């Protein structure tokens, strides 16, 4: 794992504070779990019907009936509970998730999120992402700052079909932490070795700077 990615995951992990109920989306967000303090009192939720996710298990130790929503074989912790898919999303829609961390294709400066469809290229269905994005009390995005071709993912407006409007509060990338404020994107932290100019260039929308010094992560 690259150093920048590790730092991004570690920084995102600090977003999770004691007592929270958290859903980590498929992909990068799921990896945040490896950067949480072992004694942190937190409840991890997966939409296929489990609260209290324990460590991921290798095939030889896996329970064939115990996976997370991404298909990884996981384990229980003391106090886990299993439930059906309706109950699982009842938790989501009724606002019982304090936080969800999701991947993104695009995030707009008004907090719109596009992460489920690229017309003509990628349309596997929305799965549970729309309910997480629309209903978790706090939605943050964890993503590379640009796509593989180097195009910015943080934009003035999304071009792809939306997952949810005005819901993203913060974006963690390999370059920076960017908050979505009423006036647009605000750069709040910088990755080690990255300059403000580099982040600005990699961002497809104006990026305001705070009055104070930018912390590094």
């Amino acid at each position, binding site marked *: 794992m690259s150093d920048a990615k590790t730092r991004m995951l570690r920084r995102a992990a600090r977003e999770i504070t004691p007592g929270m109920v958290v859903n980590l989306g498929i992909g990068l967000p799921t990896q945040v779990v490896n950067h949480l303090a072992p004694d*942190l009192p937190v*409840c*991890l*939720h997966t939409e296929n019907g489990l609260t209290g996710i324990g460590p991921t298990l290798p095939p030889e130790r896996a329970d064939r009936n115990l996976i997370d929503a991404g298909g990884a074989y996981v384990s229980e912790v003391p106090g886990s509970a299993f439930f059906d898919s309706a109950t699982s999303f009842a938790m989501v829609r009724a606002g019982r998730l304090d936080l969800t961390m999701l991947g993104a294709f695009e995030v707009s400066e008004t907090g719109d999120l596009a992460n489920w469809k690229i017309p003509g290229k990628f349309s596997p269905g929305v799965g549970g992402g729309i309910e997480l994005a629309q209903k978790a009390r706090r939605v943050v995005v964890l993503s590379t700052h640009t796509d593989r071709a180097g195009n910015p993912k943080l934009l003035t407006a999304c071009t792809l079909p939306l997952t949810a409007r005005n819901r993203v509060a913060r974006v963690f990338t390999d370059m920076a932490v960017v908050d979505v404020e009423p006036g647009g994107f605000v750069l709040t932290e910088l990755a080690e070795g990255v300059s403000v100019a580099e982040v600005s260039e990699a961002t497809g929308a104006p990026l305001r700077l705070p009055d104070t010094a930018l912390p590094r992560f």
Partner: protein
Amino acid sequence: MRLPEKICAMEDAIAQIRDGDTVMVGGFGVPGTPMTLIRALVAHGARDLTLVKNDANEPGMGIDHLLQSGQVARLITTHLGLNSHAIGLMNSGRIAVEFNAQGILAERIRAGGSGLGAVLSDIGLGTELAEGKQVVQVAGQDYLVEPALRAGIALIHAERADPFGNLTYAATARNFNPLMAMAADQVIVEVEEIVPLGALPPEAVHTPGVFVDQVVPLGTLSGEYAVVRR
């Protein structure tokens, strides 16, 4: 990872309740009625409450104490047949009563607990229970709109809980408890026995702790929970 803990003193839990609050109360008859939380709410004294409960228990039992103390302005329920005192309050206009079909009350609460706006149902179409309700056509059929119900507070009785608030209910004491435990901003649970994290098999949990805010241990059960001799 370890799960957060939510064990709380009864007074602290009940102190959250404010005048004018909507309070859901579990139970169908005696089983599942949180008798001790109800007594604490009487002692706390919050007034002008809207209660949501399947029934009004019997005179001198359960939520009848809240009716006796004049703390209830409105009751959303299904059947008052066993409480002549509650019927008297209703008939004399001292409490407002809204009757729901029992399963529709259950669905309205569950909808509130599931982040839905309403359910559409044909129960009561063509009867006076449909009067005043919004009607929607879906695929050529008429349905009544049964809006989701939520509350500020839910008072729940469980048989066992762990410190995270995973709950199990005994026998027919389950009834409305798991539904109301989904549908309130603050879910307060009185429990007969607290067991350690991990002692409830994860497959056997009736209400996942994610829905629960405060877990209040009961000591020795009062006589109100006992078999009623009629």
